[in-house]
């Protein structure tokens, strides 16, 4: 698949020259927007599957108590305000005068109904329970006031609530996912209503004129799904669609010069990183061996000097420029500049192969060692090319590096079983602040408390764990940010992982449109405006 896609891009580039002479795309007809997304939503049930394409579509139809702005900072949605009235109780004031698509009024009853419905969704492969489980009690004070009691201190409750679409209690007990797909239960407070749904092909949306917020410009939206990169770009160039998401990086240099297309980009919350297996620090590593292929008695990757050398050996600027075609930003931490809990003086580690080689010698590996770097080849933008580049850079400091790109379904299962020694993955920081990666990736794996759930390297640093846990229990936003920054710094100084770059999200559109580019990758028709 990866191969095919790459050759397809080559073909498309070859033909790009011809295309320049083509017809000039006309303006959007009437008040209709045709857009194409790259990944197909799997259901219209907003609580069935916590999956980016589903959530992005649900944002059009449903509303949440808290909304996230383009920079992933919480802002009032269906709740006008929220504040903790004690350590465990939050009080939310709801927006008055909001109506659901069926005309019923939005009240506190709907909050109770929604939070009770989330755990009852049948066969969910990825439930929203994650965000609602913390709430142990819902108390309706009056129609526009609700109190939520949590089992533990949950400072990020507003952010969790931003993920949960509110449904009208008039839907009755346990509406099925099918009734959402059949448009019977698809009733929200969002700026659009669904008028037709054809799974894997298109969704038709019509403007909800009773929407409480800013009225979207487009009366109708054709929401099409075109997963194939070249097909999506061609559809934009041919004028069949007005707007596309996830512009492929291989087309970027051509499209930047093309007058028929305007681009909007934002630095994403998704960072790419390298992780090192720490379950075999005493030897027996499957993909690390001595310079002559002999087994090593201890894991070189357990030595922070080795990890630091591996990080210094990587020329992040070159990867960003040449492999990612500028669609990324080099980084030395989880988040990009401007985000909450970004650490100002934590610059990307400088590229210094000489120093890296010295550091390796100092750690006792003057002749390096053999290592295999694994990664997916069909999951992230240019994933296979990036690991090849890293492999070459490591070879330059004297490591005999092999690179092994594997299809995602097989890769992720093996990574979760600790079958690799060094591997490449990416992580989307959906909350927009550092507690999310710290908790899931860096904290010691602890199934009973839900820590380290994606810590596939089984990295463990008890001192750091303590800081993370302390930070996560602070309700005050500013005080929490200070501790999270400290934890980020500790993780990076110990090279718990090698962070490489933040991706950029890129949208392409006709030149007479503009888009408020978002850090969280979501594509929103209601954030597309005429350029003037």
């Amino acid at each position: 698949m990866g191969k095919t896609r790459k050759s397809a891009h080559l073909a498309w580039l070859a033909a790009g020259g011809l295309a320049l002479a083509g017809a000039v795309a006309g303006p959007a007809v009437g008040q209709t927007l045709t857009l194409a997304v790259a990944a197909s939503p799997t259901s219209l049930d907003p609580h069935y599957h916590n999956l980016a394409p589903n959530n992005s579509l649900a944002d059009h139809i449903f509303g949440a108590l808290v909304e996230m702005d383009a920079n992933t900072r919480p802002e009032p949605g269906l709740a006008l305000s929220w504040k903790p009235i004690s350590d465990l109780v939050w009080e939310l004031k709801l927006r008055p005068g909001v109506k659901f698509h069926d005309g019923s009024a939005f009240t506190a009853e709907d909050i109770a109904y929604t939070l009770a419905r989330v755990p009852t969704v049948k066969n969910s492969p990825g439930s929203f329970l994650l965000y609602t489980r913390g709430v142990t009690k819902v108390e309706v004070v009056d129609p526009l006031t609700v109190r939520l009691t949590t089992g533990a201190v949950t400072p990020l409750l507003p952010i969790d609530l931003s993920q949960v679409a509110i449904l009208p209690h008039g839907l009755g007990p346990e509406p099925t996912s099918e009734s959402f797909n059949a448009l019977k239960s698809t009733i929200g407070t969002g700026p659009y209503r669904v008028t037709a749904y054809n799974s894997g092909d298109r969704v038709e949306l019509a403007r909800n004129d009773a929407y409480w917020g800013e009225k979207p410009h487009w009366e109708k939206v054709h929401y099409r799904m075109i997963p194939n990169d070249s097909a999506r770009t061609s559809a934009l160039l041919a004028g069949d669609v007005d707007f596309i998401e996830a512009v492929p990086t291989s087309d970027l240099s051509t499209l930047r010069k093309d007058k028929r297309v305007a681009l909007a980009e934002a630095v994403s919350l998704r960072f790419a990183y390298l992780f090192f297996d720490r379950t075999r620090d005493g030897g027996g590593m499957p993909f690390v061996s001595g310079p002559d292929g002999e087994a090593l008695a201890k894991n070189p990757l357990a030595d922070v000097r080795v990890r630091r050398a591996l990080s210094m050996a990587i020329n992040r600027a070159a990867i960003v420029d040449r492999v990612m075609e500028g669609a990324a930003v080099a980084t030395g931490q989880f988040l990009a500049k401007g985000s909450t809990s970004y650490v100002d003086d934590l610059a990307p580690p400088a590229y210094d192969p000489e120093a890296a080689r010295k550091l390796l010698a100092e750690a006792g590996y003057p002749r390096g060692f053999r290592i295999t770097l694994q990664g997916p080849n069909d999951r992230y933008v240019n994933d296979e090319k990036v690991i090849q580049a890293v492999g070459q850079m490591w070879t330059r400091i004297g490591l005999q590096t092999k690179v092994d790109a594997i299809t995602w379904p097989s890769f992720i299962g093996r990574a979760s079983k600790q079958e690799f020694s060094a591997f490449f993955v990416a992580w989307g920081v959906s909350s927009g602040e550092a507690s999310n990666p710290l908790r899931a990736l860096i904290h010691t794996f602890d199934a009973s408390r839900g820590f380290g759930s994606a810590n596939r390297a089984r990295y463990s640093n008890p001192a750091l764990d303590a800081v993370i846990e302390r930070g996560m229990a602070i309700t005050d936003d500013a005080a929490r940010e200070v501790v999270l920054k400290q934890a980020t710094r500790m993780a990076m100084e110990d090279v718990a992982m090698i962070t490489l770059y933040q991706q950029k999200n890129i949208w392409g559109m006709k030149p007479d449109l503009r888009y408020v580019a978002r850090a969280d990758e979501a594509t929103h028709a209601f954030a597309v405006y005429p350029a003037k």
Partner: protein
Amino acid sequence: MTTWMLRRLIQAVFVMLAMTVIVFIGVNVIGDPVEILISPEADQAERARAVIALGLDKPLWEQYWRFLLGAVQGDLGRSFVFNEPALKLIAQRMPATLELALTAVLMSVVIGIPLGLYAGLKPDSIGGRLVMGASILGFSLPSFWIGLMLIMVFAVQLGWLPSTGRGQTAELFGVQWSFLTRDGLAHMAMPAFNLALGNIALVLRLTRAGVRENLPMDYVKFARAKGLSPNRVVFVHVLKNILIPIVTVVGLEIGGLIAFAVVTESVFAWPGMGKLIIDSINVLDRPVIVAYLMMIVVLFIVINLLVDLLYTVLDPRVRLETRE
């Protein structure tokens, strides 16, 4: 005839059973659907809940046994991804693929046979050589590349045809079809041609080879000597004799086009079954994979049956019992 049909039926059941076992074991070896489907942020408790919700906590043999019990009652399971019955999902996507594949087959017969006859009857003419040369390109160029070139030329550059999608559809027998509307036909033209290209070349070459082989035969000489018109000799006698290999190949190709139209479907964003199966394999959506492959097995069995019956019509010497 009845014993022949019965034997075929029993064979089909065994093929299907073997196929389901292979899929169950295969998917299990590739990876864990929960790893792929679950939100990356899910904690360990949520992961455990999802495993139970999808029934993946049970041992594999028990999962298979449950599947068999359901299958006997006509329930092939629910998609892990869509939370809808797998059969319903496939049925929703089938019309799009069917109309695309059948149009492609129609094209390959309507274009391939006449060109093949021409090339066979006039092998040394410039036209005949050109047709043969072009046919080599037809089956040797990769279809995704041709698809992209078609889009670049006819959609992006000339703007004659829409680049992707199914266009406007109209209802017939409760199903939405593209071939009933002008817009739908315009959308279908490029993908159908793209899908047909390899088969046009194949049918063309088979026809030509058949004509070249049959022309020097005694029955043709005899027909000519009898004073039949050249048209009657070619279109009735020769054509009938060369049709058997063509029917076999076209029959198999119908199945192939329906089952494996995936490249064309993804290049043209055609919402058919091919896209569904590839997406399902990527996320290890086992119920859909199993249901899809079972349906394809049935499809091939039915097509082979029809092809065998057609042989007896084309060549009365063929007996079904002896063809086993």
